[in-house]
C-alpha cells in the first residue's frame, strides 16, 4: 500500500514545489536600492516607516536602508565609500554639506530630465532649500525638510515669571536685552533655570546660536577664506556666556541632560532644534510631561530675525566605475518622489517639509505644534558656503571645541574665538579637496 502510494506522493510533492516556486518568483527581477542614512531616534523611526510604506506600495523595487552614526563618522564613510565606487545608491545628507560633497566629487548630479521622469520639478520645492541643493548650476540633492533652531517654553514657569499674555502665549520678545530679562525673570521668580541648552564640550548648539545671532546683526562669519565677524564674534559669544555665568542657564550640560532639564520642568526655556518636538508630543500624549509647552521661532534679537537651520536631502553618490544604471536612478528618484509626496509623516518629526504641495497644504499648516514656528522657515540661514562648512563638518567640529569653553569660564569669549580662528586657519587657507 505504502509502496504503491510512493510515486504518486512524490509527483504531488514535485508539482506542489513547482507551483510554489512559480508563485514565489516575481515576473521581473526586483530592483534593490541601498540607502544609507544618518537619521536615528525618532527621525530614524519615521524614515523607516516611510521606507516600509514605500516597499509595501509596489513590487518592482525595494529600498534597503542602513543607519550609520550621525555626524563626522557618517560623512567620512560616505565620502570614502562613494569615491572608490562602493557607496550606496542613495544617501540622506545635510544640504549644508553640498559644497563639500558635490565639490569634492562625492555626489552625482541629477539632471532635470531624470527628475522629470519621477515627476519631480524644482518649482515644487521651497526656493531657498532648492537653491541650497544646487552646486555650480547643477542639482545634487532633493531637499526633504528644513529644521531651524527654535525657542521652546514651559507655560507654567513662563506664566509665573509674568512672560505670558492673556491667551497664555509668550509675549513677544524683541532684542537681546529683552531675552536676557526673560531668562532672568524666569530664574528669579521660579527657582528653576531660565534657560537650558546643550553646552558641554564638543556640543554644536552654541555654534548654531552664535551663527544666528551674528546673522541677525548682518555679520557674516567667513568669506573667501577670511574670518569676517570682527569684534562682533567675541561680543556675541559674551552675550550668550552671560546667561551661563549669571546662572540663568547651567553650564556643562550634555545634550540628553539639557533636554531632560526642560522635559522635567526644571527650565523655563529651551533653545534647540525642532527635532525635539516629537518627544514633547509623545510626553504630552502619554500624560507624563506635567506642563503645557509652546514654541516660537528664535526671537529677533538684533536687526533681523535670521535663524540657523539645516535641511536633510536625498543625494546620489558618484560611485565612479560603478555608476548607477538609468534603471537604478529611476528607481531611486521614484522612492525620493514618494517620500516627498508623503512628507507630512516626516513633518511629525518637527521638520518643515521642503515639498511645497505638502508644506503648503491645509493639513501641514494646521499641524501642531509645527504651526507655532512655521514662519521660521522664511528667515533661515545655513552655514556659509565653503568646503569645510556644514553639519559636523571640519569647521563646526573646531568651533564646537572652543566656543562652549567660553560658557564655563575656562576661556574668555575673546580667547575662545581667537583659538577657534587659530586652529581653523590652516583649514580655510587650504584648497578644497577633491576626494
Amino acid at each position: 500500500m505504502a509502496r504503491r502510494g510512493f510515486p504518486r506522493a512524490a509527483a504531488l510533492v514535485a508539482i506542489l514545489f513547482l507551483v510554489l516556486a512559480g508563485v514565489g518568483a516575481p515576473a521581473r527581477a526586483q530592483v534593490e536600492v541601498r540607502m544609507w542614512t544618518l537619521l536615528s531616534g525618532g527621525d530614524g523611526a519615521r524614515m523607516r516607516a516611510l521606507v516600509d510604506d514605500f516597499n509595501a506600495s509596489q513590487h518592482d523595487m525595494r529600498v534597503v536602508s542602513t543607519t550609520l552614526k550621525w555626524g563626522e563618522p557618517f560623512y567620512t564613510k560616505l565620502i570614502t565609500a562613494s569615491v572608490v565606487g562602493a557607496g550606496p545608491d542613495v544617501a540622506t545628507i545635510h544640504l549644508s554639506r553640498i559644497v563639500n560633497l558635490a565639490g569634492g566629487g562625492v555626489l552625482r548630479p541629477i539632471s532635470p530630465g531624470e527628475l522629470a521622469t519621477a515627476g519631480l520639478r524644482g518649482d515644487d520645492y521651497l526656493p531657498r532649500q532648492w537653491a541650497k541643493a544646487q552646486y555650480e548650476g547643477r542639482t545634487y540633492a532633493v531637499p526633504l525638510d528644513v529644521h531651524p533652531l527654535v525657542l521652546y517654553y514651559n507655560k507654567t514657569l513662563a506664566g509665573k515669571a509674568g512672560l505670558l499674555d492673556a491667551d497664555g502665549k509668550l509675549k513677544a520678545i524683541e532684542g537681546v536685552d529683552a531675552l536676557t530679562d526673560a531668562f532672568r525673570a524666569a530664574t528669579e521668580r521660579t527657582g528653576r533655570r531660565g534657560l537650558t541648552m546643550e553646552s558641554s564640550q564638543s556640543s554644536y548648539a552654541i555654534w548654531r546660536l552664535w551663527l544666528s545671532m551674528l546673522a541677525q546683526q548682518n555679520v557674516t562669519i567667513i568669506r573667501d577664506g577670511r574670518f569676517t565677524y570682527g569684534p562682533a564674534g567675541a561680543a556675541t559669544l559674551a552675550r550668550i556666556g552671560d546667561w551661563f555665568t549669571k546662572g540663568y542657564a547651567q553650564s556643562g550640560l550634555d545634550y540628553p541632560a539639557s533636554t531632560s532639564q526642560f522635559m522635567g520642568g526644571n527650565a523655563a526655556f529651551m533653545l534647540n532644534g525642532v527635532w525635539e518636538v516629537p518627544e514633547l508630543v509623545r510626553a504630552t500624549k502619554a500624560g507624563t510631561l506635567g506642563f503645557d509647552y509652546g514654541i516660537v521661532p528664535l526671537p529677533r534679537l538684533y536687526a533681523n530675525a535670521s535663524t540657523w537651520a539645516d535641511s536633510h536631502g536625498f543625494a546620489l553618490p558618484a560611485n565612479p566605475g560603478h555608476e548607477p544604471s538609468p534603471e537604478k536612478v529611476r528607481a531611486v528618484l521614484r522612492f525620493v518622489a514618494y517620500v516627498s509626496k508623503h512628507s507630512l509623516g516626516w513633518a511629525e518629526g518637527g521638520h518643515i517639509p521642503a515639498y511645497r504641495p505638502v508644506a503648503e497644504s491645509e493639513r501641514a499648516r494646521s499641524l501642531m505644534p509645527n504651526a507655532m514656528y512655521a514662519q521660521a522657515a522664511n528667515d533661515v540661514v545655513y552655514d556659509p558656503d565653503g568646503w569645510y562648512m556644514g553639519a559636523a563638518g571640519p569647521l563646526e567640529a573646531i568651533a564646537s571645541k572652543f566656543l562652549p569653553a567660553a560658557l564655563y569660564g575656562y576661556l574668555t569669549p575673546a580667547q575662545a574665538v581667537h583659538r577657534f580662528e587659530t586652529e581653523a586657519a590652516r583649514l580655510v587657507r587650504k584648497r578644497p579637496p577633491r576626494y
Partner: protein
Amino acid sequence: MQRDDTILAPDTRPTTARDDTLPAWLLLAPFLVAFGLFFFLPALETFWLSLTESSLTRTSAFVGLDNYHTLLHDPSFWDSVGNTFYFSLLTVIPLCALGLLMAMLVDRFTGARGWLQGTFFLPFVLPISVMTLIADWMLQPSSGVVNHILGGQRAWLADPYLALPAVAIGTIWWTVGFNMLLFLAGLRNIPAELYEAAALDGARGFTLFRTITWPALRPVVSTAVILQLIASLKVFGQTYILTSGGPFNTTRVALHYMYETAFTQSDAGYAAAVAMAFVAIVILLSLLQAWIVKWLAGRDA
C-alpha cells in the same frame, strides 16, 4: 596601549657556524615578508604621502617639504605633542613603580599569590571599549563612584586640568597588570641563594632590595620603561573615546591630531607629515632613553 608591544624583534645576529645561515633566513622569512608588506612598505608610502597634498583617496600635487614647513609653525601639532609627553609623564613612572610594587607583593604573599596575581592582572584583559565605559561611569560628575568617595561634583573629563590626569589614572588601572607580570618574571629569575647569602651577612628589609633585587632587576626595569614609554606615546583610544580630545584640545594627543587631520579634515598629506614627525620624535626619545640606561649602567660598573 597595544599588546603587540610585547613582541620583541628576533635576534638577527649571525651565529658562529656558517651552515646555520640558510635555516636562519628560512626561519626569518615569514617575519621579514610580513614586516616588509605590512610595516615597511606602508611606512615608505606614508613618507611619500607626506610630501604631497592629498585627500583620503586622491593625491592632487607634489608639494615637497611644504607640509613639514607648516608643521613647524602649527601650534595645534605642538600642543598635541606636548599633551602626549604630559600623558607619558603621568603614566610611565607610576606604571613601572606600581607594577614593581605589585610584583613584590605577589612574590611575598605566597599563600594568596594566585588570587592577588589574578586580581591585579584582570583589568588588562578588558577591551578598551569596556575599560573606557567603566572609567566613564566611575568619573561621572553626579553619579560616579569617584566623586562619591572624594565628595563634590567634579566634572573630571570636562575639566581642562583634570581630564588628562583622569585618563592617565584610568590607563594605569587598566595596564599595570602587564608590568607586574614582567617584574614577577624578573623576580623569579633571581636565585634564592643570593638572598640567603645576604641574609647570612645580616642584610634585611630595604637593604636586600637595594643591593640584590634592584640590581638584578635592572634589565627588566629598562625593558619595562621603554615598552611603557612607547605605549604611552602611542596613546589614542582612551582619550578618543573618553574625551574626544576635549575640553578644547587639552587631551588631544599626537595620534588624535593625525586622525583628525586625515579623517575630519581630509588632509591625508598633512596627516602623514604629522605621523612621520611624530615617529621621528618617538625614535629619538627611545634612543635617548637607551643611551641613558647604558650610561647609568656604565657609571655603576
